[in-house]
């Protein structure tokens, strides 16, 4: 676990800025009420095993007690650096994005499932859209009941959306909670399996 270096920080912030705009300030300056300290600390970004975590400072202090290899996760995982060195947001950051989102799209109930299965958002499925979205902006996808479902990249600006036909793609799918359910459910299983195997090998190795 280590703080992000300058290059990584810019990458992470640029990505977050795409979705939150000026609300990025809120993410950084958000006071944390975790831990027993009376005066609230802040949240900070930490890198652990190529994954970026959004952690409260008090937790960081405590996590230092655990050695790097055995620290699986801490705080909220918001994304990962790929092998190529680029930063990807993962679905776990959805909550953070949803509260601070600048651009939002609300889906009609009929098209929610389609999105949750990993499809792009079509104009026909659009219940509501924030005004003033430009193409390429990060967009958080909500259900009509204001439940965040995922996020993506705007394919068209709001203005262009008006003239589009209902089958045009409005938001390019990046991550959604349905996929998360699938992926991370499985991954969690695999992880535990690996750990189990590791433990087994650990146990088995010296003994047997």
């Amino acid at each position, binding site marked *: 676990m280590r703080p992000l270096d300058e290059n990584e920080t810019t990458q992470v912030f640029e990505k977050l800025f795409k979705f939150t705009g000026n609300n990025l300030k809120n993410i950084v300056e958000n006071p944390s009420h975790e831990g027993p300290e009376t005066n609230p600390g802040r949240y900070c970004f930490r890198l652990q095993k190529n994954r970026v975590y959004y952690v409260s400072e008090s937790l960081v202090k405590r996590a230092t007690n655990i050695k790097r290899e055995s620290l699986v996760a801490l705080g909220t995982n918001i994304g990962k650096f790929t092998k190529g060195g680029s930063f990807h947001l993962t679905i776990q950051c959805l*909550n953070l994005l949803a509260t601070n989102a600048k651009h939002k799209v609300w889906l009609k109930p009929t098209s929610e499932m389609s999105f949750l299965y990993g499809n792009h958002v079509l104009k026909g499925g*659009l219940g509501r*859209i*924030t*005004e003033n979205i430009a193409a390429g902006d990060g967009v958080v996808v909500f259900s009509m009941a*204001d439940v965040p479902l995922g996020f993506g990249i705007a394919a068209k600006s709001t203005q262009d959306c*008006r003239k589009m036909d209902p089958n045009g793609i409005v938001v390019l799918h990046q991550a959604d909670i349905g996929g998360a359910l699938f992926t991370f459910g499985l991954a969690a299983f695999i992880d535990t399996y690996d750990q189990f195997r590791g433990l087994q090998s650990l146990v088995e190795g010296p003994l047997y």
Partner: protein
Amino acid sequence: MFAHWYGMKIRTFNHCPIDGDDRVEGDGDGRVYFFSPKLQRLVHHYTRFYRMGKKQKIVLPPDLPPEISEDEIEVSDEDLQFVNENREYAGFVSNLDTQSITRHVTRVADVKEDALESLYEKRLRKKSLEKAKEENVLEVDPVDALPVKTLDGKLYYRTVAKKSENAPKEGEASGDNEDDGVDKSVVKMTKAEKRAKLKKMKKEAKKQGKEVAEVEGGQQIPQAEVLAEVKKELTAEEANERKKYRLAELGTALLMDPESNIKSLKEMLQISKDGDHAIVILGLKSLLAVFKDIIPGYRIRLPTEKEQEMIVSKDVKKMRYYESTLLSVYKAYLQRLMALEQQPLFQRVAVRCICTLLDAVPHFNFRDSLLAAVIKNISSPDDVIRKLCCATVKSLFTNEGKHGGEATVEAVQLIADHVKVYDCQLHPDSIEVFMSLSFDEDLRRPEISNADGRVKNKKNKKRKNLEEQSQLQGNEKKRSRQELMSKTREEVSAEFKAASFAQDVMEQRRMQSETLSAVFQTYFRILKHTMQSVAARYVTVMDIYNKEGRTGWIRYHRAYTWTWLGANSRSEGSLSSSAGASGGHPLLAPSLNGIGKFSHLIDLDFMGDLMNYLRKLAGGGSNSNNSDGFSDNSVKHLTVSERLGCCIVAFKVMRNNLDALNVDLQDFFVQLYSLILEYRPGRDQGGVLAEALKIMLCDDRQHDMQRAAAFIKRLATFSLCFGSAESMAALVTLKHLLQKNVKCRNLLENDAGGGSVSGPIAKYQPYASDPNLSGALASVLWELNLLSKHYHPTVSTIASSISTLSDTHNQVFHSNLSPQQAFMELSLEQESFNPKGDLRKPTHKRKRGSGSSMPAGNGHPDISSTEEEVMRKKLSEHFLILRDITENERLKSELDRTMMSLKLYEQYKKQRKNQGSSKPKKMRNC
């Protein structure tokens, strides 16, 4: 002059040795003329007639006695005897050549009648010429013959007053019969008489002037002379009176029969060029009335030269003459109006005339100049003129039937240019007129159907052509017949079009689109101008900042304050100059209204830019990126009402163009959220706020839960601190929001924190600028409890009904009251609201709470009165105690004193006793 001449004549007749009576008789009713001075009117009337008839009846100066046949002559014996006796000198009678004598006396007796007339006319003319010559000669008044020397050294001979030359003579006629034989009666008259006479003369003159006017232009030369003379002799007042009458006469004559009296228009115009203020105004007004009435319902096209050469019937000629005269005079009149419009003295009248003309006859020639004049004055500093012009333009817009819409296009384009030229610094009224424009939306449909039809036709034609080609190649006859049929059909339809007054749809649509483009051009220009003026300051500041760099931070600050102060003073100046207009953007509010009204007609391509502008303006022109200092100061540039207006317009535009896409205007909600706090009841317009609440919060279909909660909380806070009307509007909105967003009813529960719905923000942040980040769901609506004790019964009722909303979960009940209505009702009621009526219920809630904890509104007489009682009691108690204390003290001191005196007395007694006991001893001793 004639009267004068005529009077002279009579006098000479009277003195004539030959019998005058006959002569007078020859004049017809001349006797009446002499008899009664009371009937002078009649006399003058008569003389006028007489003069008018002069052409035919010419007075032969030395007339023969009436012809008497020889049989009738009775020659008396005396006569005979006389002749016989004095044959030497009377004998010539017998051998007189009667024939030659008659010829001599009648002189022209043997000339034919017509020739005779002309001859006499000639003679008359000669005479009048002589008269005129005579008048030119300086005539020195015999009374004061000495000349006057002016300061320049010029000598002025006092000429005989014009009046005395003529008027007396006119009076002479009447004077003659009063005291016959007295020539210069004026001289001998007493003062009173003179005055009476003068009055009479004035009256006569008036009459005369009036009647002179009636004379047709047939015998202009003597008439003109008379007129000139009369004009000269009348004083200015009289002339004015006369002109007034003349105007009235001409006007009525014109209205009665415009075709034959069209010439008198020129004269009216001439009168209106008079030097006198009142007469000019009257002339303009009467001309206006006449024009309004006689201008035909079509546009006059003057005949071309070719047409004029053609031989036409009499009627057509007459008509042409009429039209051309009308047009030329109208043109001259308009030129006169335009000229007078420049003069401050006549401006109002001229503008009124122009406006009325434009209103009445917008179809007629020279509409452009009228329109230009009206538009020029549309933002005049003079209230009356501006209102007039605005009303006129409005009526132009609303009554398009009168001019077929062409004037609308022109007017709108002119206004657009006007705004451009004046750089958007005009009175708001000049843009508000656009609000009365109306656009026919049905025009779009026929276009579509036409287009479809055309396509179909084309297809059909193609098909037909194909068919025809395939079919009709064989039989040419059929084909030619068909062609003939179609030709005739086309002709008929063309004729029908020409005959029917229905306008061409295409033409109408073209005009409408031109109008629209001009209107929106104006609106966008204003928006852009506002943007630029707001941004300009920001840019200058940024420039300074960039130049100085961070090292010059302090200097930059100073420079910024300077610019800011300068701008402020400038805007203040404009504020004071354009009273009522807000800040430096007088046109912003009306243009926003206009965009709101016509938002459904905006092209979708403009939408993006428009929303961008609106967003920036709603943010007070501050970019969201800039630092706090900037935004704080530039926000001040636009008032809260204007910014609210921007938000409203944005929502209207979005709603009206909301075909398929439901767009969420997040930025505007953020603006509204902060604007609610900036609102001040006295300074800003509550109606605008209520409208914004209605459109943005009540009408919008869905909201985020977070945002709704934030607005609910803020509105509740807001309603605590403002007047009853504002808080009522806020509470109605609040109720609406709570009814829609079931989850937000958690706010009504009594535990802070919000539970599972409170979202990621655990604590309510009242100062957050973004409603989504305020964490309002974690708060409690404690304000309602306070509001239920509001002094205004309506507010307290709705507050308590809101606080019980969570209990009545399943009740689907929507109040129809909109925030605007609520605001209006209460703000109207506020004037008549008598808080004393509240005391009627002694068991009212408010009594329970202690008065001091109430939110202090603006004057709570009921609370203060209840308080007063308590206070009075307390005070009285207090003072009672105080009084008791003082009383006690007094009593105590009194007691002390008495005690003291008692003691003293006792001591004294004792002493006395001692002394007494000793004294008696002494006495005894003595």
